[in-house]
């Protein structure tokens, strides 16, 4: 099975197969002497040429990260089947982008209205949690297409607060 994997923005091509309990692994064409076993949910024990690693997977509503020891890597994975009939990542980047709540909390202020022009990184909504206020920023320069957050509303992590076109 061939996967395209993106780790912290860098792309890798991974060719992985398994027979008789042995893994065959090629990363970007390079053969890797690898063994892996799932120990408990979301925790792999990986051996690379004798070196042992505990790799944890962290899945939140907004994304997936892999922890190698105490280092956290943002990970995305595509396999060939899902690539079929699917637009490339670039097309997505040009389209509308969601502003997502990174944590649960309460919307205390809405900083941009629909049709406003916003800069990338400009705060558009303020969410309060644990007595701290967190400014949620626009992921891109564009026009505020839709503002879904309302002041006083409770939101969960992963909720869409606004959409920037």
């Amino acid at each position: 099975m061939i996967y395209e994997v993106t780790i912290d923005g860098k792309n890798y091509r991974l060719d992985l197969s398994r027979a008789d309990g042995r893994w065959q692994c090629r990363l970007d064409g390079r053969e890797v002497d690898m063994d892996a076993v799932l120990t408990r949910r979301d925790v792999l024990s990986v051996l690379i040429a004798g070196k042992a690693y505990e790799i944890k997977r962290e899945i939140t509503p907004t994304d997936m990260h892999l922890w190698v020891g105490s280092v956290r890597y943002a990970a995305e994975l595509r396999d060939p089947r899902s690539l079929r009939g699917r637009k490339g990542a670039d097309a997505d980047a040009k389209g509308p982008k969601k502003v997502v709540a990174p944590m649960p909390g309460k919307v205390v202020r809405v900083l941009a209205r629909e049709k406003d022009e916003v800069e990338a990184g400009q705060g558009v909504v303020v969410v309060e949690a644990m007595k701290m206020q967190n400014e949620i920023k626009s992921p891109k320069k564009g026009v505020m297409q839709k503002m879904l957050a309302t002041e006083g509303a409770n939101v969960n992590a992963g909720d869409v607060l606004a959409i920037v076109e």
Partner: protein
Amino acid sequence: MFKKILIANRGEIAVRVVRACRELGITAVAVYSDVDRASLHVRKADEAYHIGPPAASESYLNVPKILDVARRSGADAIHPGYGFLSENSKFAQACVDAGIKFIGPTAASMEMMGSKTRARQEMEKAGVPLVPGTSRGLESAQEAERVAAKIGYPVMLKAAAGGGGKGMRLVHTPGDLRAALEAAQSEAQRSFGDSEVYVEKAIVNPRHIEVQVLADEHGNTVYLGERECSIQRRHQKVLEESPSPIVDPEMRRRMGEIAVRVAKAAHYTNAGTVEFLVDQEKNFYFLEMNTRLQVEHPVTELITGLDLVHLQIRIAAGEKLPFTQDDISIRGHAMECRIYAEDPDNNFFPSPGKITLLLTPSGPGIRRDSGMYEGWTVPIDYDPLLAKLIGYGTDRQQAIARLIRALNEYFVGGIKTNISLFRQILRDPDFQAGKLDTGYLDRLLSHGPKLDLRDSGGAELAAIAAGVFAQLEAASAVPNNGFSGNGSGPKSAPDKASNWKRTARVEGLR
């Protein structure tokens, strides 16, 4: 001894007190707000009662409701933990009036220590060393200027009713004094409903060192060594240790004896903490007394071998202290890391949410006091303290090494925590050399080299692991009940249903 104790708190400290009750054969009663029904302290208690909505003012700070639960459940004592009602003298008095024992000092002791100016006056009388300054609220800007000129700049303006840095101003030059005084007074009025402000000499780069005291109701008071609490961020302690790297037995004895004098001057009973500022010449000055159990009490427990919560309960039940000052021995070194739900990479923003994966450390020299569990959702409504990881070692170096080891075993997935901050502190050469003061952490965070172990080897491993996770989920359809699951054969994959779930999640990420 009490038959039933109500714990007017939540989180790790409520769990801590439930455990002490269990160990003493006492029924433990928990209270919970709407968002705490599934919290660990409720799971672990013998009884549990709902006390209202999430807002603390309507639940954990609601005195009538808590007293009502105490009466209904037949509790004969209340343990307040720390925070919430623990230093509220009116609550302590209300317990007395209701015929329920408050596990802590009397309302009168709390009141004396609750006002910083009144505490200064009493301690001055008792001959306790104080930072030079006024022990009364400043009557006028003229008085402030006169006193400040006498004690010398820089000076610190402080609210008498203060706490948490509110109503405090550091003033470097006479020209800034007037404006700073007005600002401090109006902030004090807004924060505490009391505009009283006094002035002290500002100690430059002080250490914050505190002494644990215990006093029974028969006049016996002892000290249990000190705790170094200089590692703070925004006046919040982050890591504490005992002994302090700079306190030798002679200094410990002197600080301890002053702390006992403070406690006796306040007619103090039960567990309390006397906080000192220590300057660079190791002079120490009384700062304030915390009239409750501290978050960081475990480090004292580990170096003395005592259980402070057991002793609090036994003292409140009228027992005499089971030892004298001479019986107390300090051995080894202990350190506590406060694990907070906050993001150290994003200005320490709070990070509530669901804990999707939790791996906990254990083994030699490791104590874990925790209020969290895998699957629990950290509510947005309270203090972000999740757990405390406490390390003990034969010496300071071993305690540090064990904590680093344990922090590497600790994993909290789904939310952010400050675990990585402790790795950075514990590996820092200044920390390892014991060069600490209250400005240490801000310096480390602004100037210190950020610990970055990110490398291309790690990224490649992550890439491989991402594929392995996906493949194990996609390929396996064999339930895994048998022992052969430990091999690397096809059975080592998870069972079908969980696969389905995980695959669904991965699909969702595309």
